[in-house]
């Protein structure tokens, strides 16, 4: 007769390791990080490589908060202030954290955030410019040299997928160069350099992209193998990381021609690129249905007047203020800073709000002053999710 394995401990409510592994692999990263201190065995389970792989497959990444990076001023010296605004706050308290990257050896400027992994760099000027790729949840990081010429305006984006080996990633360094031909005006191009974590080497790509406009909000968003950057000229610079091909995707233009687009940002939701714009017509959220066909679909739309009516304390006289400020594109009255998973961090005057598109709910996050801003220009904001992923090699 076959023996059936029965763990007698089950009667007492003590579960064996396999069963615990199964349950825990379905728990989100944030509570799991707390559970690491339950016992030594649990700490080992949760830190284990194959557990992390199973957990990544069984759970989806939750937007945990927004990293807010103050941008350099005219003097081309980096500002060291980095803040973090969590999406969930206890009792609606306004919680803003500084020193979030204090575990790194120096002050940094955040460059990219992808699936819980963050890429940052030394603040300029620096005697030894370095790039860091880190996971704040376990305080692990790796570093690589940031080879000169180090341009304070350049963007380094992070391409990171869980599907392959969790510790594999690519960095794409984008610079804007001017090539002068015989005529008076120079022509502007984006160049691309790729770093591969497997080869630990940089390589210049032969691909260049002719574009007269510079990147704004300088951060590349990685979705489904493509990196996207918003440019000043209403185009989205897109780069296929595998094929090393670039293209420019025009932003969606709403039917009314009178529209002056006031402020915009891009972000990922449900695996697709979204474009969020604020204009006199209100807040519009578009989804890129087909990348190569440039096909955008309007997902959500809310009039400024409706914001005024629903949130009179926050948005008194919103529409007029937005229209008045549309002349000054450097500091719009209502400025969408970051969009991810249906949540939008938006700056209105001197306050920050989080708008949940799915629930059609706006909450006050904090005042802009709590971020201790030193520059008047809008900060660069990155979405952040907690993961257990370890960057160290096996």
């Amino acid at each position, binding site marked *: 007769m076959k023996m059936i394995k029965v763990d007698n401990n089950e009667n*007492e409510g*003590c579960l064996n390791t396999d069963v615990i592994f199964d349950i825990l692999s*379905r*728990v989100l990263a944030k*509570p799991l*990080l707390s559970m690491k201190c*339950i*016992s030594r065995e*649990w700490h080992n389970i949760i830190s284990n490589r194959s557990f992390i792989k199973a957990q990544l497959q069984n759970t989806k990444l939750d937007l945990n908060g927004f990293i807010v990076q103050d941008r350099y001023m005219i003097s081309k010296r980096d500002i060291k202030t980095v803040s973090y605004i969590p999406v969930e706050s206890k009792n609606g308290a306004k919680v803003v*954290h500084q020193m979030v990257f204090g575990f790194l050896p120096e002050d940094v400027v955040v460059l990219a955030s992808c699936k819980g992994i963050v890429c940052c760099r030394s603040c300029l000027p620096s005697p030894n410019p370095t790039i860091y790729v880190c996971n704040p949840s376990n305080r692990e990081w790796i570093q690589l040299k940031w080879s000169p010429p180090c341009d304070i305006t350049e963007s380094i984006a992070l391409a990171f997928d869980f599907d392959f080996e969790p510790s594999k990633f690519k960095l794409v360094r984008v610079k804007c160069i001017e090539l002068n031909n015989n005529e008076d005006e120079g022509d502007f191009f984006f160049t691309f350099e790729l770093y591969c974590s497997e080869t630990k080497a940089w390589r210049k790509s032969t691909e260049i992209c002719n574009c007269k406009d510079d990147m704004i909000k300088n951060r590349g968003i990685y979705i489904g193998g493509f990196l996207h950057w918003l440019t000043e000229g209403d185009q989205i610079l897109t780069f296929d990381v595998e094929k090393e091909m670039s293209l420019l995707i025009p932003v969606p233009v709403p039917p009314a021609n009178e529209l002056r687009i006031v402020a915009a940002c891009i972000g990922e939701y449900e695996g697709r690129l979204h474009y969020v714009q604020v204009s006199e017509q209100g807040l519009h959220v578009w989804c890129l249905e087909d990348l190569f066909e440039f096909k955008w679909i309007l997902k959500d739309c809310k009039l400024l007047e409706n914001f005024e009516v629903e949130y009179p304390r926050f948005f008194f006289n919103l529409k007029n203020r937005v229209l008045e400020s549309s002349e000054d594109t450097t500091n719009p009255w209502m400025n969408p800073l970051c969009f991810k998973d249906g949540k939008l961090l938006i700056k209105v005057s001197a306050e920050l709000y989080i708008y949940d598109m799915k629930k059609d709910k706006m909450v006050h996050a904090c005042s802009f002053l709590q971020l201790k801003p030193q520059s008047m220009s809008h900060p660069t904001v990155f979405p952040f999710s907690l993961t257990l992923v370890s960057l160290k090699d096996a």
Partner: protein
Amino acid sequence: MAQEASSSTSSKTISLKTGDGEIFEIEASAAKQMKTVQRLIDDLGDDITIPLHNVFSKELPKIIEYYKKDITGEITKDFEAEFVKDLNDDEVKVLFLAANYLDANKLFEFLSQNIADRLESKSVEYVRKYFGVENDFTPEEESKLREERAWSFRGIKEDE
């Protein structure tokens, strides 16, 4: 749903006897989903009352209810939500352990996910008690861990 044509399983019921001596009937096709039961049937024959020492009369009816729905293909998200709605955390745990003992894969995965969802908002102390786990960290080690965990910030209050 059409039943299988095989005469040996089409309307055959199996008798199961719980650890506290009660007897329940299930269809043979449902019994197939519980690998432990099926192994016992293979070894003891399907005419004998199958003894299940580690499953009790409180849980077995619920498990049978689940698999009754499963063999007719009627398990939906709504049904699953209803199924666990009135169960407290301990009741779910007992059901889950029973599913584990019975090697009933579908129910096991469903309840495992349900427990994972319930644990997300619970304190460390609660989770320790729930799993019957001893804390074998020293106080110094534990406070160091709490400091490092979950991206600790200046001025943040401890969780409950």
